[in-house]
């Protein structure tokens, strides 16, 4: 018998070692480093020292609370919208897709094969003041000429909703697809109406998908800055825009790192509470 077969546990650790070491150096450690950088003081020209300046946290929170609140609000609205749009879509594909199931699923993920930026820029073309969406309505006199969508919070939320819709639809589909049709038929045989069947049978069984979809949509939505930058105005900037500007425009690393750390911590705490509330144990997808 060979060494590998006699030592299955050692073999497992050998298989894990390179990838886990990589994640430790380039994911785990940088998170700690980000926290340390947030405690630096100094200037980009004169250099930075680690001075354990914890005061930066209340200061950054106070200064950018509007951006944080706006990010949470936009993220929450967009997540709700993706659910409202995605649920009927996932429902149809799971239960009524028939031989078009693969094609429909493919159409849901097809936008991913186009650059995220180009898709967002396409919305700028669609939302333009005399563009595809507004031009005809204005010509018909249904909207005043000065009405605009670009550079408004509506455009930002619409862009986020569009970009993360597949992240909501796919987990919903996976959860719905697992529901045996017999359960829905049983509900119908027992005289449950459409709404009652949805509420008492389909929704509860789709809960893991709703949980996964909400997280997969909300987390990137809150941290997004591309939609706000390309479709919004200075008044609709999100926390991601501030972090990006702190690092890449003004080299104010400590503030940028502190804001980024707050964002990460808030999301981790939120995910933890949410997992407890919904009671899903499949959080990490592990096969225990």
């Amino acid at each position, binding site marked *: 018998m060979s060494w590998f077969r006699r030592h299955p546990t050692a073999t497992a650790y050998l298989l*894990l070692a390179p990838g886990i070491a990589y994640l430790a150096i380039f994911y785990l450690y940088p*998170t700690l480093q980000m926290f340390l950088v947030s405690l630096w003081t100094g200037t980009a020209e004169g250099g930075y020292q680690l001075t354990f300046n914890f005061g930066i946290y209340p200061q950054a929170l106070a200064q950018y609370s509007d951006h944080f609140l706006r990010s949470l609000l936009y993220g929450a609205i967009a997540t709700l919208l993706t659910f409202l749009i995605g649920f009927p879509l996932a429902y*149809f594909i799971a239960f009524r897709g028939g031989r078009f199931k693969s094609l429909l699923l493919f159409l849901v993920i097809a936008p991913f094969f186009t650059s995220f*930026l180009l898709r967002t820029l396409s919305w700028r073309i669609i939302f333009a003041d005399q563009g595809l969406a507004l031009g005809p309505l204005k010509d018909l006199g249904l909207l005043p000429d000065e009405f605009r969508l670009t550079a408004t919070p509506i455009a930002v939320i619409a862009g986020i909703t569009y970009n993360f819709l597949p992240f909501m639809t796919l987990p919903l589909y996976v959860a719905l697809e697992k529901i045996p049709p017999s359960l829905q038929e049983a509900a119908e045989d027992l005289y449950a109406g459409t709404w009652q069947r949805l509420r008492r049978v389909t929704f509860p069984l789709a809960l893991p998908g709703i949980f996964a979809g909400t997280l997969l949509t909300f987390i990137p939505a809150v941290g997004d800055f591309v939609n706000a930058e390309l479709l919004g105005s200075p008044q609709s900037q999100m926390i991601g825009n501030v972090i990006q500007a702190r690092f890449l425009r003004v080299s104010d690393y400590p503030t940028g790192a502190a804001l*980024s750390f707050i964002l990460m911590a808030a*999301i981790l705490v939120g995910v933890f509470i949410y997992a407890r509330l919904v009671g899903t144990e499949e959080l990490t997808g592990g096969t225990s």
Partner: protein
Amino acid sequence: MRIARLLDRWLLPLYVALAVLYLALPVLIMILFSFNDPSGRSNISWRGFSLESWFDPLGQPGLAEAVTTSLLVALLATLVATGLGVLIGLALVRHRFRGRSSINLLIFLPMSTPEIVLGVSLLTLFLASTQYAFVPQGTFFPLGFHTILIAHIMFNISYVVVTMRARLQGFPQHLEEAAMDLGANEWTTFWRVTFPLILPGVMAAALLAFSLSIDDYVITVFTSGQATTFPLYIYGSQQRGIPVQVNVVGTIIFLVAVGMVALSTFVQRRQRPDPVEAAEVAGGRS
């Protein structure tokens, strides 16, 4: 009851058609605007049909370099991340060991961290490394191709592991045992039995990694320094006005990606029945 039936039979399919159109609309607009007349300053309003940009898809200063960088980064990041991720996937599905829930958590965390936080934390590592004596000067700074590659490998590993883990469930392990009982060593068993069986999963993971990598903007912008990838080029040119060629390149990438997915689905459908069915027959499970 009648309303419910109406809803079910007509409104839901109509809704799905509209939703699919909504999802496709920006892609169609991107393709349509690759045929726009390139005479204007920016590619926002329609000026008339032209094939000019299609005959010269890289004819903008810097665009060819950006596309080349993107392809190279995506290719190398996919190779390394798929290698590392497949090994982790094999360990997670096929071995029992202490600490597996921590490993699962470590795989899950990067996917549930906003991209901007991943980019920022890597940038802080690169910034701080200049202060550490044990990191040779020039390892990370100046930022460039190598730091983009480091970042892309990092965020791709988790996606590869998750794809592999899903594909490896129910792996017919007794086939390997059979091979070894027949005298094959580890090396032969891996390449002749294990690898052909996991190949469709590896391909799916690699395709996912490649498409994530070639499209990434957020993490790349924090780790790129002076280097430019295709998404960085798009972003950089949107202030000056986006050239029509960007839409041409975007359309080509879209078509190639769709073609690759179609091809891999086709290959999988042809391959899948043979090994899995054979395995199940061999295992007496059918």
